C-alpha cells in the first residue's frame, strides 16, 4: 500500500454550468507524505481544482483518486474524511459555537462519541498548539489562532491529505511562522494553494504551476521560482528583494 499515491488526478476537465471552462485536463500525482505547493495566478482554476478533490464539484471528464479510492458518490463520506480542506477564511470554516464542538464536528459526523471523541479533539488541538482553547468561541480568538484551529478541525478526521487554501493570507509574520512550524510537524500529505512564494519555498520541496486550466510546470520549488521565463509566462512574481537561490 505504501506505493499508492495520496492523490492522483488524471485528465481532469471541468466547465461551470454557465459554460465557462476552468480546467482543461489536469494531471498530477502526489505521493504519501509529500508537501506540494500549487501555484498559479488568480483565475487559473486553483479553487476549482481543490473543490474536485473532495467531490464538491464532479469532474466533467477525467478522474480523481485519493489513496486508491476514486472520488465519486459511492465513497463520498470516506473521501470527505480523507481529504481535509482548510478554507481561506477561518470564519467560514469554524461554524460551531465553541472550538471543541467545531473540532468534534467531523469525527462526530462519522459517528464517534464519548471519550474516544474527546481524545481525538484533544489530540488535534495539541497538534496545532491550541489545547486549552477548547471552550472558547471562535470569534474570541486571534486570526492566527483561528487559522490553526481550522487546521485542527480537519486533522481531527485523520485525513490522508491536507489541502490548504492560502494558509498564510492575512497572518502577521509571527502567526505565519507558527503555522509553518505546525505544518512541518505534521505527518500528513500536504497540498498548499498559495500566492506566497517564499512560504511555498520554505515548506514545500515540490511545486506545481496551474495556469489556464492545465499543469504548466511540476518540479522542485527552488527551480521553478528561479526560472524567470516560466514565472513571467504564468504571472508569478517574487516579492521585492527575494532571491530563491540565496535562501538556505
Amino acid at each position, binding site marked *: 500500500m505504501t506505493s499508492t499515491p495520496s492523490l492522483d488526478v488524471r485528465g481532469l476537465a471541468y466547465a461551470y454550468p454557465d459554460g465557462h471552462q476552468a480546467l482543461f485536463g489536469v494531471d498530477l500525482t502526489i505521493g504519501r507524505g509529500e508537501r506540494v505547493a500549487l501555484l498559479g495566478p488568480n483565475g487559473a482554476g486553483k479553487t476549482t481544482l481543490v473543490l474536485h478533490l473532495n467531490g464538491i464539484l464532479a469532474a466533467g471528464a477525467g478522474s480523481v483518486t485519493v489513496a486508491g479510492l476514486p472520488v465519486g458518490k459511492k465513497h463520498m*463520506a470516506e473521501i470527505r*474524511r480523507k481529504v481535509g480542506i482548510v478554507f481561506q477564511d477561518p470564519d467560514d470554516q469554524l461554524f460551531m459555537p465553541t472550538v471543541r464542538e467545531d473540532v468534534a464536528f467531523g469525527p462526530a459526523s462519522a459517528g464517534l462519541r464519548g471519550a474516544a471523541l474527546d481524545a481525538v479533539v484533544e489530540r488535534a488541538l495539541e497538534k496545532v498548539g491550541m489545547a486549552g482553547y477548547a471552550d472558547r468561541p471562535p470569534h474570541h480568538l486571534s486570526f492566527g489562532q483561528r487559522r490553526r484551529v481550522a487546521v485542527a478541525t480537519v486533522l481531527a*478526521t485523520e485525513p490522508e491529505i491536507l489541502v490548504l487554501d492560502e494558509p498564510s493570507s492575512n497572518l502577521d509574520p509571527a502567526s505565519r511562522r507558527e503555522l509553518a512550524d505546525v505544518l512541518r510537524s505534521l505527518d500528513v500529505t500536504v497540498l498548499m494553494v498559495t500566492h506566497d512564494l517564499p512560504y511555498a519555498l520554505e515548506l514545500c520541496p515540490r511545486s506545481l504551476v496551474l495556469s489556464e486550466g492545465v499543469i504548466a510546470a511540476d518540479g522542485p520549488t527552488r527551480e521553478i521560482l528561479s526560472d524567470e521565463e516560466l514565472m513571467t509566462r504564468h504571472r508569478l512574481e517574487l516579492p521585492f528583494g527575494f532571491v530563491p537561490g540565496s535562501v538556505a
Partner: protein
Amino acid sequence: MGAGHAHKLYRRGDSPVHGLPPHTKLVAVLGFVLVVVTTPREAVWAFAGYAALLAAVAALARVPVGFLLRRLAIEVPFVAFALLMPFVVPGEQTTVLGVAVSVPGLWGAWNILAKGTLGVAASVLLAATTELRGLILGLQRLGLPSLLVQIASFMIRYGDVVTDEMRRMSIARRSRGFEARGVRHWGVLAKSAGALFIRSYERGERVHLAMVSRGYTGTMPLLDERPADRAQWAAALALPLAALPICLLALLG
C-alpha cells in the same frame, strides 16, 4: 476568560440553579408560566405567593434584585398598553385619585401586569442562570426540530461576525464623508443593508461548503449530552409544583 457564549443576559455563577440541566429548567419555567396564567386574576394573594417563589429562586441562584429589576425593563412597552386599559375599556366606572376609570379595565390591566411581570421575571431568571448555547441544546433535547436548532446555533455563531461587518461598512461610509442625517440619506443606508445581506448570503454558501467538506449530511451531531437524573428533575420542577397548590386554592376560592 474561557467563556462560552457569555451574552449580557447571562450571569456567571455556580449556584444550584446554574447547575441544573437546561432542558429541566425550560420545562420548569413553562410549567410555572402555565400555572400563573391559569390563576384567576381576582386572587391577588396568589400572585404575591408566586412572586415570593421567584424571589426564593433568585436568592438561591444568587441573582441580585437590581439585576433582575433592570432586566424587567423589557416589559415596559406592554406595561404602557396595560396602563391604557382602565381608560379605554367600557364598563362600570369608579374614581381613583379623582380620575374616572373603568373597573373591568383596572382588572384587565392588573391581569396583564401581574401575569406578564411574573412570566418575564421567570424568563429573566432562566436566561441569567443558563448559557445561550445551553438553552438551545436544551430545546433540542426537548424535541425542537433540528433545523430550527441549527438556525439558532448559527445565529449565535455568526451574530458577531455580521455585526462586525456592519460596523466596518459604517466606518468605510464615514471615512468617505458620509453622515446619515435625514430621509435623504436613507437610500445609502438601504443599499448598505442590501450589500450586507448579499455578503451574509455568500458567507452562508461558503460555510455550507466548509460543512459539506467535513461530512455534513443534513443533521448536526448531538454532542455534550447532559441527561438529567431524578434529583435534578425534582429540583427543577419544585418551582411549578410549589406554584400549583396556590393556583388550585385560588381556583376553588
